[in-house]
């Protein structure tokens, strides 16, 4: 072997020195390149990672916007409420039983919330129970030393300082559901409150404000060690915007009181712009039920209640309007030149069509269009609809906004139904329906379906001389950041009626209330000329629904109103007096006549009271 290996035992030749020098330069150069790569090329990416490593963002909830009425009265207030929180990482399972008894919450429910919170961040406090009362809070405080990881925080809840509840208009907030979390994405987190109905829902993004964040520095074990960079990066929450409503809280409260023991709705609108002055749906419920946390049993009761207190009867019902709809047919006939003011028809108390006889309530004799409205002569309109025809009748219905959305800003409404030939062809088959179907439509019966809100918009259009305003509860929005107030920009369109047609229809309506032999005299107000129209909608399933639409003062209306009472009987005797009182209250600010005494209605089984009482 020694023969093969070359003998040169020379130490450290210059060649070998060069090789080693190159190796050293190579190694240092390699490290240099890598250093450059990490610090100069990947700097942004790795810098972000380092920030994420050390930062924990704690959400600070904003104050939800306040809601005021048209006179500046605070209708929806915000106040403090205490929420119990648990920091999952610090919680000791052995204290679960104690916590459960202190909060009267099932252990399973608490564990469930903690697990969901842990999925978000085990070091951030997660809400276990909202809105605990003061007794529970004191009991909790006394035991906090036994409950590691448990704490409480101040949240806000809704308060309703006025007598008006306006439940269906204002709506309510609820804790966000899992489904909403999936759908609405990034902004919301488990345990957040979100507007779930009414204005709270439709103006959610305005009212909620913007969450703020407080940044805390954490160490590698996730433990908070202080505020990050002395809070220089913290984002303070931005207050929600205030809503200023066209609502008159006093009128609303009064209208609600008139509806005690009724099922039905009142919608009062400012005819000059469509602003909602009052919107009542009965039965209702106390909105404070939802202000903090809703007990599941109360929620279940509200949901299963057969009187449907959660249901907004003002915008979500579809009832035939009865005779209150007659102005549509009258307007169609006049506008199309089929009749004029001199046209008369003699009512013998009944109308024969084909082999069927349709009875009227009385024999009205020779009647012109004004008298037909005034006395609600059915026969006059029975024969008139055949002259006008289904399509024209339907067209004028649409012109008044029926069979379509009103565009109201409270979020939920249904369009109702104005049947036309196409509709009947679809439902019954072509040629399988007759002109006889039209007879009931002439007096607002049959398939025709409208909501009290649509009727109020219609009444307002009749009041203002033919402009259909988009009804809206919000008059303006105050931006709390800039203090700028933005007016609600509502839509409006003309119904498209001549001055003459309008004058004739309105004269008919004036006589309904303000002249002898009118059907709506119960709606009269001292010192003010009122006009309107009564309606009694036949109900195949039970008692008639009572309707009244009207406006006042006749010369320069400031309020238009629609009243609908389920199964209450005749419109003239039940709905008209309520409408009169609502209009009087709004116009005079008080009830001028002696003590208001609407005829006592029959007691409708009303679970509202049961629910509200049980909550108190």
């Amino acid at each position, binding site marked *: *072997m*020694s023969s*093969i*290996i*070359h*003998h*040169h*035992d*020379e*130490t*450290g*030749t*210059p060649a*070998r*020195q060069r*090789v*080693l*020098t190159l*190796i*050293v*330069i190579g*190694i*240092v150069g*390699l*490290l*240099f390149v*890598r*250093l*450059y790569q*990490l*610090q*100069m090329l*990947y*700097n942004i*990416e*790795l*810098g972000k*990672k*380092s*920030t994420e*490593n*050390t930062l924990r963002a704690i959400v600070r909830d904003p104050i939800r916007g306040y809601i005021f009425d048209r006179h500046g009265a605070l209708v929806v207030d915000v106040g403090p409420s205490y929420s119990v929180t648990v920091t999952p990482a610090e919680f000791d399972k052995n204290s679960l039983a104690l916590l459960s008894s202190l909060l009267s919450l099932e252990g399973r429910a608490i564990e469930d919330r903690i697990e969901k919170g842990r999925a978000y961040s085990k070091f951030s406090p997660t809400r276990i129970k909202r809105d605990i009362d003061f007794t529970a809070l004191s009991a909790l405080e006394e035991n906090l030393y036994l409950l590691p990881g448990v704490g409480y925080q101040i949240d806000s809840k809704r308060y309703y300082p006025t007598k008006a509840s306006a439940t269906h208009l204002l709506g309510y907030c609820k804790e966000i559901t899992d489904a909403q979390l999936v759908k609405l994405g990034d902004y919301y987190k488990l345990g957040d409150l979100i507007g779930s109905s009414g204005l709270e829902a439709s103006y959610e993004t305005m009212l909620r404000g913007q969450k703020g964040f407080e940044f805390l*520095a*954490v*160490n*590698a074990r996730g433990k908070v*060690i202080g505020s990050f960079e002395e809070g220089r990066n913290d984002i303070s929450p931005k207050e929600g915007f205030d809503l200023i409503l066209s609502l008159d809280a006093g009128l609303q409260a009064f209208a609600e009181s008139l509806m005690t023991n009724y099922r039905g709705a009142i919608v009062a609108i400012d005819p000059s712009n469509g602003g909602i002055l009052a919107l009542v749906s009965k039965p209702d419920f106390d909105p404070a039920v939802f202000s903090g946390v809703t007990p599941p049993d109360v929620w279940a009761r509200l949901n299963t209640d057969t009187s449907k207190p959660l249901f907004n009867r003002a915008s979500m019902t579809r009832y035939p309007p009865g005779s209150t709809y007659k102005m549509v047919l009258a307007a169609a006939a006049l506008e199309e030149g089929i009749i004029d003011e001199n046209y008369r028809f003699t009512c013998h108390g009944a109308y024969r069509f084909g082999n069927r006889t349709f009875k009227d309530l009385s024999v009205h004799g020779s009647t012109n269009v004004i008298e037909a409205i005034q006395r609600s002569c059915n026969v006059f309109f029975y024969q008139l609809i055949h002259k006008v025809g289904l399509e024209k009748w339907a067209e004028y219905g649409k012109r008044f906004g029926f069979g379509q959305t009103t565009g109201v800003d409270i979020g939920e409404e249904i369009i109702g139904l104005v049947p036309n030939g196409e509709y009947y062809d679809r439902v019954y088959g072509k040629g399988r329906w007759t002109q006889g179907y039209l007879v009931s439509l002439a007096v607002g019966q049959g398939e025709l379906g409208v909501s009290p809100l649509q009727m109020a918009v219609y009444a307002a259009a009749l009041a203002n001389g033919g402009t259909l305003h988009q009804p809206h509860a919000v008059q303006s929005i105050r931006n709390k950041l800039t203090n700028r107030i933005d007016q609600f920009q509502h839509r409006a369109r003309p119904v498209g009626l001549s001055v003459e047609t309008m004058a004739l229809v309105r004269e008919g309506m004036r006589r309904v209330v303000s002249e002898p032999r009118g059907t709506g005299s119960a709606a009269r107000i001292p010192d003010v000329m009122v006009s309107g129209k009564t309606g009694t909608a036949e109900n195949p399933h039970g008692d008639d629904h009572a309707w009244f639409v009207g406006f006042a003062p006749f010369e320069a209306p400031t309020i238009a109103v629609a009243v609908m009472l389920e199964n209450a009987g005749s419109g003239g005797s039940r709905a008209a007096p309520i409408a009169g009182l609502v209009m009087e209250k709004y116009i005079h600010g008080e009830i001028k006549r002696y003590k208001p005494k609407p005829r006592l209605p029959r007691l409708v089984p009303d679970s509202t009271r049961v629910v509200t009482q049980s909550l108190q």
Partner: protein
Amino acid sequence: MLDYFKEYFDFKAFFLTIGLVVVGLVSVYSATYDAGAGSIFERQLMWAGIGFFGMIVAAVLPLKTIQRLSVPAYVVSLAILFAVLVIGKTVSGSKSWLGVGGLGGQPSELAKVATILALAAFLAKTTTMISDPKHLFFAIAIALIPTALVVVQPDIGTSMVFVAMLLPVLYWAGVDNFVLAAILSPVIVAVGALFGTFFFIISVLICAVLLYMSRQNRFIAAMAFAVTLAVGVSVQFVYERMPAYQQKRIMTFLNPEADPLGSGYNVLQAKVAIGSGGLFGKGYLQGTQTQLNFIPEQWTDFIFCVPGEEFGFFGASLVLLLFGALLLHGIKVASVSKNRFAGIAAIGITAVFGTHVLINIGMSMGLMPVVGIPLPFLSYGGSALLMNMVMSGLLMNFWANRKAY
């Protein structure tokens, strides 16, 4: 007097070492002052003082004394390494710690210096012919005996340093290129084999070229190549028959980022720390990764992250430059030394420093497997700091005696 200093005082080794020790103290302070490990900085400061003393002693001792002491020192260090295995304290899973009275230390640090000196002393003997295979094997054995004792502690990182130091020393002592290639080839192929067939083939090709170019005799070259191939194939054979968990352990050793929650965690956090430093860093004591203890025991093996994060590319480059200058100076000392012992020892010292720098900084930047070896002068560790400063002192000694035979 000044001329005397100019002639005999090794300014470069001295100031580069002091510079690195200062950077180390600054970094250790940052990594520990708020981490509930307050006394670490004071202890490091104390050891720096002891190290300074050790450095001066090593620099002024007569060269002949050092050469004569090298073999006894080597024997003593072997005895201590052996004793550690029997009575040593287990620290971080390794029996590498020996405590005497209040002071404790890692004997493997002493063994490093002693082995370099013993190897140099043997190779420098006039009777030693490195071209004689018997002598070559004896030299290799001098390095491998302490390596074996360190491996069983087990301290894989330090044992790798012993092996890595051996090759440059043999190279400097004049071992034939072919012999080095024949030693290196099986190692290259074995590592290549672990990375899969593609890297296996590449490494085999590289070794074939190395062996072919340095060959003296075709038959011997072919035999060396056959051995290389056999090692590679058997490594693959053994690896494939290993239990899955052992395979995983090897894989995460080679590629720690495959296990981001285990050993990859440190590398990931270290990369984040260095990378987030940017051009000028986050400022002293302002590095969030460092101050918030994202890297466990950062003051030991991941100390490079401190200058990287807090002083940025400028600070970290300065550290690299200091090391680069020290390494080049070590080679310079070796080449100007007329004394064979001093020259070979200087190369050994430079090789130890270089290996530590490459593995440690490479590891902190995700270039190297996570091998627990400290960064010279910077990492916390008393005996390591002392012995590193003693090695710098030896370089100063060799510089001062460069003209003596």
